[in-house]
């Protein structure tokens, strides 16, 4: 009996190991190992053409910290992320409040408003680019925002906001439906105004939704790549809209300064981790239950 039990446990353990192995191995090969490879690469002057490289120590990082181009890219990324996170959430919340109740009309409208989210960013960017130049521009007799230095980032942000607001809306609708109706009734009995109810009940109860949306959109915003590449490709003037991801891509593949680009990628990862950590800490301290 004992022997049979042992046989069964071994069999079980072997099957478990075989079940886990494909996913774990693929993950380690494609994500974990490259991550650790990337760190030493960032200390070399590797270029894509010759496979030889020398260790240059912290030189890449030193150049990066003194590089105006890199900090412009970081600044652009944060400018985009700010616009993107704030407006996606405001519009998402506004639409969620409008469509909060379930009715036939509201459900159809939710479906439509979420639609842009499933389209690829590249396609969305191209569609908008032509809308700016072929529809918006002649209609209002102004140049496309993507061609104007100070408006280009806003133009790009509008595309991304259009695509993500529906996503925020869904999260907020779920949050709003989770607020117990009795809270509002009690507040009404006490004579609270609609605005008071919104700020004293709705907003605090929505903290988990805010937290989910803001942290996810921050991560997306800081990684922004394809919209910029498909619309301005860093232009209209030099580096006007280059973002961190584009800076990294351009250095690794176009400028053939892979070690340098990899160092920038490591810094970008650090920025991402720090920002996400701070945001989750900020929201955790404000949760009500």
């Amino acid at each position: 009996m004992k022997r049979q039990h042992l046989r069964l446990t071994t069999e079980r353990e072997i099957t478990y190991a075989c079940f886990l192995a494909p996913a774990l191995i693929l993950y380690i090969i494609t994500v974990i190992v490259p991550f650790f490879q990337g760190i030493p690469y960032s200390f070399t002057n590797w270029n894509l053409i010759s496979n030889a490289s020398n260790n240059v120590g912290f030189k890449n990082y030193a150049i990066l910290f003194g590089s105006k181009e890199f900090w412009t890219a970081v600044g652009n990324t944060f400018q985009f992320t700010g616009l993107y996170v704030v407006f996606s959430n405001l519009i998402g919340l506004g639409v969620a409040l409008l469509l909060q109740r379930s009715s036939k009309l509201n459900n159809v409208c939710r479906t439509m408003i979420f639609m842009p989210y499933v389209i690829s960013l590249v396609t969305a960017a191209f569609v908008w680019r032509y809308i700016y130049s072929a529809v918006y521009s002649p209609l209002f007799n102004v140049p496309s925002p993507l061609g104007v230095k100070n408006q280009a980032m806003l133009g790009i942000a509008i595309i991304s906001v259009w695509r993500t607001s529906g996503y925020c809306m869904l999260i907020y609708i779920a949050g709003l439906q989770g607020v117990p109706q009795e809270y509002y009734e009690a507040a009404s009995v006490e004579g609270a105004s609609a605005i008071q109810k919104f700020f004293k009940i709705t907003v605090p109860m929505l903290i988990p939704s805010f937290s989910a949306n803001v942290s996810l959109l921050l991560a997306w915003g800081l990684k922004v790549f394809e919209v910029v590449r498909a619309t301005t490709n860093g232009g209209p003037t030099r580096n006007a809209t280059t973002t961190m991801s584009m800076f990294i891509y351009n250095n690794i593949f176009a400028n053939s300064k892979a070690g340098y680009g990899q160092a920038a990628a490591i810094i970008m990862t650090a920025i991402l981790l720090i920002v996400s950590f701070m945001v989750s800490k900020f929201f955790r301290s404000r949760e009500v239950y």
Partner: protein
Amino acid sequence: MVSNTKLPASGATFFNYTRRKHLANLLRAVCVVLVTLLFISPLYISLIYSLKTPQEMGTSAPLSLPSSFYLGNYSDVVVKNDLFRTGFTNSLISTLCIVAVLTVITPMACYVLARSNRKVYAAAYYIFMTGILIPFQCIMFPEYINLKAVGLINTLQGYIIVRAGFQIGICIMIITNFVKTVPVELEEAANIDGASVFRTFWRIVFPLLKPINVTMLVINTLNAWNDYAVSVAILQSEDKRTLPLAQLVYTSETGVDVNLAFAFFSLCIIPVLLLYLFTQKYIVGGIMSGAVKG
């Protein structure tokens, strides 16, 4: 509620009250419709532009409906545009492979991670979760070097492996959470009846995971079909381009036929929109359980 506390006294004011309420509802409905129209207007514009002839462009107002249902732009893109055809085929093949791989290997792994208490598996779970935080830009260059070393750079196989691998972390997180909510009793019963773990999983657990598997299937399909960041680093030759990469021909606005461009875009949009409309329930469910990441 307000209506209970301030119950109107006379019939006249009551009538006013319901009328006001009706008006407010009407106003709300109008707002809802306007906002929705604003959101779908870019899609509307791409559709009408793709249905207009180049001659019509000059004569009619930009936002007017096309005078006839002209499909010439679409047939031009499908028949004459090699970029579209290779892009579509490549996207289709790679998406199918990525989704198939993920659908088989991730639920298996999640089953182990959810059911076993051993420290090794807890460590494995930790590895998966940490990896989610890594942005693709950080592993893009090492990935390129590795694929080049094994001769898979510029191949769909290489892209499929990397894209599927990069997606594993989030699938593991979502599906493991789901497996933990599935009652163990059924498996225990099967176990007592002498079924092996392998059999138990595929015969009993896997069918129970259907809702989450379908959700992840749809989300993975969207991610793979729409991917740009991974494919742009790996697939660099023209004949290997996926649809999002093929669209890069439109980066120069001069000399491009706008109607053809919009027909191309519409053809990229239509498959995902159809998928979305048919599987909306699952996509929304997936989003609620946090199944998306950048």
